[in-house]
C-alpha cells in the first residue's frame, strides 16, 4: 500500500500548498483598478494593479525599451516616476546613476503597480508600434551570424539609422513564455517596409537559438520598435566607428543612409574587428562603398590571422585603433561610435580617451 500512500500524501500536501499560494495571490495581489497618468495627464490608462509597469504599459500598446524582456538585467526600461512608488529596490540601483536617481528615474520592470502612478516618458515612445512581419529572407553572412529580412507588409516604419527593434520570441521547445530581445536595425531608414537584423548565435541563448534553429522564411513574427538614441550627430567631426560581429548592424544602416542622403563631407573611419577570416562579412560591399566615397575608410582587422592569407590589419581591434589614432588619424575634432559587448566598449573607450577623444563625444550601443 505504501507505493500508493507516499505519492498520494505528497500530492495532497503539494496540492494544498499550491492552493494556499493561489488563494493568497488572488487576495493579496488584488490592488483593484489603478490609473497610470502619462506626461502630466496627456494620456491616462486605467488597469488592474498587481503587475509591473513595463508589462502593464505594453499590454496597452505603450512600449518602453527593454532588451531583456523585463527580467531586470538590461536596465533599458527607464522612465521618470513623478508620484511616490517607494524606495529604490536593490535590483534597480546597479542600472541607475546618482543623477538619474535624483530625477526619480526608475526601471519599469521593477515597479509593481499598487496604487495610482504618474510617469513621464519621451513622446517618441508613443510612436513605437508592434509590427506583424513576415520573414522574407534569411542569409548566413558568417558561420554564426544570420542576416534576417522582415517584411512589414502595408505597415510603414520611420526610424533613425542606429536605432533598434525588439524581436518577440514565441514559446518553443522548453521555453514556455514569450520573450523579447533587442537587435540593432541594419537596413536603411529609406526602406520603410522592411527591417533587417543581424543576429549572431549565442550558445544557449533563448532568442538566437530560436532564430538560428527554428526561424524559416515565410514565418510570421512580431517586432516592436523603433527604440534607441544611438545615431550620428549632425556635426562635421571625424567619425571613429568601432564594431565587432553583429555590432556591424547600426553602422551598416548609418553608412548607407549617409551615403544615400549625400551626407558625405565628413571623414569616417570604420574599424571592424574579428578573430579569423571566417568571422568577417560584408567586405566586398564595404570595399565598394569605400571606392565610391573618398571620405569613408573601412579597416577590417583580424586578431588571430595565423595560417591565413590576410593582407589587412592584424591584432586586437583596440591595438589597431590605438595605432591609427596615434599615426593616421591624429588631428582634427573626433567623435567615437561603438557597438559591441560591454568589455569591447570599455576597452575602446579607454583607447579613445587616451588619444584625446572626450568621453562625452563617445556614443555607444552596448549589447545587454
Amino acid at each position, binding site marked *: 500500500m505504501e507505493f500508493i*500512500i507516499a505519492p498520494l*500524501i*505528497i500530492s495532497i*500536501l*503539494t496540492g494544498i500548498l499550491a492552493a494556499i499560494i493561489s488563494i493568497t495571490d488572488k487576495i493579496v495581489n488584488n490592488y483593484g483598478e489603478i490609473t497610470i497618468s502619462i506626461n502630466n495627464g496627456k494620456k491616462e490608462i486605467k488597469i488592474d494593479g498587481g503587475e509591473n509597469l513595463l508589462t502593464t504599459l505594453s499590454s496597452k500598446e505603450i512600449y518602453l525599451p527593454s532588451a531583456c524582456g523585463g527580467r531586470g538585467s538590461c536596465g533599458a526600461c527607464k522612465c521618470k516616476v513623478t508620484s511616490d512608488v517607494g524606495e529604490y*529596490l*536593490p535590483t534597480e540601483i546597479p542600472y541607475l546613476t546618482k543623477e538619474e536617481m535624483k530625477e526619480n528615474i526608475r526601471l519599469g520592470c521593477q515597479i*509593481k503597480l499598487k496604487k495610482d502612478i504618474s510617469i513621464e516618458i519621451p513622446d517618441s515612445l508613443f510612436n513605437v508600434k508592434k509590427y506583424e512581419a513576415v520573414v522574407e529572407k534569411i542569409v548566413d553572412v558568417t558561420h554564426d551570424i544570420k542576416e534576417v529580412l522582415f517584411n512589414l507588409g502595408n505597415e510603414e516604419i520611420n526610424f533613425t539609422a542606429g536605432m533598434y527593434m525588439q524581436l518577440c520570441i514565441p514559446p518553443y521547445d522548453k521555453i514556455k513564455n514569450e520573450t523579447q530581445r533587442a537587435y540593432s536595425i541594419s537596413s536603411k531608414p529609406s526602406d520603410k517596409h522592411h527591417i533587417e537584423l543581424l543576429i549572431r548565435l549565442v550558445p544557449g541563448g533563448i532568442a538566437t537559438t530560436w532564430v538560428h534553429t527554428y526561424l524559416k522564411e515565410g514565418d510570421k513574427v512580431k517586432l516592436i520598435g523603433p527604440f534607441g538614441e544611438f545615431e550620428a550627430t549632425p556635426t562635421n567631426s571625424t567619425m571613429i566607428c568601432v564594431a565587432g560581429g553583429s555590432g556591424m548592424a547600426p553602422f551598416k544602416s548609418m553608412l548607407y543612409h549617409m551615403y544615400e542622403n549625400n551626407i558625405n563631407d565628413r571623414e569616417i573611419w570604420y574599424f571592424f574587428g574579428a578573430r579569423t577570416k571566417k568571422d568577417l562579412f560584408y567586405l566586398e560591399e564595404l570595399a565598394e562603398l569605400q571606392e565610391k566615397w573618398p571620405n569613408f575608410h573601412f579597416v577590417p582587422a583580424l586578431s588571430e590571422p595565423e595560417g591565413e592569407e590576410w593582407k589587412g590589419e592584424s591584432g586586437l581591434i583596440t591595438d589597431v585603433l590605438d595605432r591609427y589614432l596615434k599615426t593616421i588619424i591624429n588631428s582634427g575634432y573626433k567623435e567615437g561610435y561603438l557597438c559591441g559587448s560591454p568589455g569591447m566598449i570599455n576597452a575602446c573607450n579607454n583607447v579613445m580617451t587616451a588619444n584625446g577623444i572626450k568621453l562625452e563625444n563617445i556614443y555607444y550601443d552596448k549589447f545587454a
Partner: protein
Amino acid sequence: MSPDISPIVLFFASIFTSNILLANFLGMCSFISISKDMNSSNGLGMAVTAVLTITAAINWVVINYILIPFDLLYLRYIVFIVVIAATVQILEMLIDRLSPSLYMALGIFLPLITVNCAILGVSLFIEIRKYTFIQTLFYAFGAGLGWWLAIMLLSAIQKKIANAPVPAGLKGPGITLITIGFMAMAFIGFSGMLIVQ
C-alpha cells in the same frame, strides 16, 4: 522521546554554543557572499530568522501529523523543501502587501532563502533531535538569531578588513574564510556553558 531541555536553554544554545553557521557550517554561501555590506547582511539575517522560525514550525506539524503517522519519514527531504519554497512564496506576497517597508528591508533576499541550507538543516535537526513544538519554536528562532548575529559580526569585521593591510594573495575570499575560522574558534569558547545536541 523529546529531550528534557528547557526551551530557554535551547534558545541561547542555538545562538551561541550551537550556532548554526559557526558550529554546523550551514548557510555558508549566502553568509560569505552577502556579508560585504552591513545593510544587506541585516536584511538577509532578518529574512533568515523569519523564514527559519516559520518553516520549522510548519515542518514540525508536517513531521508529527503526516510523516510519522503514515510512516513516510524517508520523504522528509522533498517535503521540507516543498514546504520551505511554498512558505517563502506566501511570506513574500504577504510582506509586500502588509508592510512595504519590511519588504524593502528584506527585498530580494526572501526568494534567495529558499535554497539556504541552514533552513533545511534546522528542520532536519528538529526531526532528528525529536524536539517538542515549543522547543522547536525556541530552537529555530534562536538559530535564526544566531545566523543573523554571525553575519552581522562578519560584515562588521569585513568593513574593518577593507582598510587593513591584507597581503595581496589573501584579499577577498581568502581573508574572509580565515576570519570565519577565527569566529568559529571564538564561538567554541562558549561551548562549555551549554551543551545541546
